[in-house]
């Protein structure tokens, strides 16, 4: 379960555009939808919309998010928030930048797998999340804990 994006009690409904309806996109869409937000999902491949859970009550737009017309169709100009979570780093980075500079959306987050590329765009003040970096961090942390347990046990 994704925790409430806007903090426990702040229940104001937001208009959120999610680009990409794979495993992550559909999960986010379902959870945010059940929290009472208005969601529009943009997905190029119509069959991927089948990933959406029954909790999802928003709209979907089938189209290429690299085309400005598709973003307009999803009324991105009215959005409070845009999440770019397709499986392609470049499209996420491009849509995030367009959302910020052309549509002036206040909250924009992009998923970027390549940590190298993520570092470059953080310098450009694009808010990114790298699953690769996150899992590496978690693996290392968990591994560190195990090592510590081991050395404590062997010390006993």
């Amino acid at each position, binding site marked *: 379960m994704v925790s409430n994006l806007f903090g426990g009690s702040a229940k104001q409904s937001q208009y959120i555009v999610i680009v990409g309806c794979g495993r992550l996109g559909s999960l986010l869409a379902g959870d945010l939808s059940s929290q009472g937000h208005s969601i529009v999902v943009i997905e190029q491949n119509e069959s991927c919309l089948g990933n959406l859970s029954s909790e999802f009550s928003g709209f979907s737009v089938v189209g290429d998010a*690299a*085309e400005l017309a598709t973003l307009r169709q999803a009324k991105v100009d009215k959005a409070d928030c845009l999440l770019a979570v397709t499986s392609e780093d470049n499209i996420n980075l491009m849509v995030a930048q367009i959302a910020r*500079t052309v549509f002036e959306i206040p909250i924009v987050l992009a998923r970027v797998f390549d940590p190298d590329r993520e570092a*470059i765009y953080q310098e450009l003040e694009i808010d990114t999340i790298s699953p690769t970096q996150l899992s590496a961090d978690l693996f290392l942390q968990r591994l560190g804990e195990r090592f510590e347990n081991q050395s404590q046990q062997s010390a006993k």
Partner: protein
Amino acid sequence: MRIILIGTDKLTYFLGRRFASKGYFLTIITPEEENAIALSRKLKATVLTGNGSDPAMLQEAGAYQADVLLALTPKDQDNLIACQIAQDRYGVPKTVALVNDPENREIFEELGVSVAFSATEVLGSMIEQQTASADIRNLVPVTDSGVTITEVVLAENSPAVGSAIKDLKLQGAVVACVVRRGRVLLAQRRSYLHAGDRVLLISESDRYGQAQKALTGEGA
């Protein structure tokens, strides 16, 4: 000049051939191995197989020393990111991106790409000009200035034939020179125009239609 070219198809090959013949130092990045081998056999260029928007790939292609990067893949997003990474991380002074969605052209330039061009737009406007008037050739936009250079051939029935250049009352446009029977004549305000003259017109892009009408009688 050191050029990095990212692309996949014929355009990459023919541009590569042209750059190589001018003696430019050329590196091509193309995603498919087969294509890369074919290109490296045919061109005097370094050819790398890979993803042109991958920072490591760009570095291997010598991005730190490159003067220009051209991103010509069929995906707008890949072209944008390649240009931005080349510019921001490797300090490539000039980047050129092909855009497929014409609406992305202005946005890409706003996002830092030095020059973005839309093949759809370029071809579309060429075809429109050709069909609008067979007498107009070679419309060349002067980069970034909003000015275009055109060659207009005056037909027998052109309203400009028999008039002096000053009588054309051109606004925001000048006749730079007239080519008559293969000779270049400096255009003066009192020069009279003849049928068959080739008129070299320099105009502000939004005044081009009026100037075209004064010379050929066609157009807006």
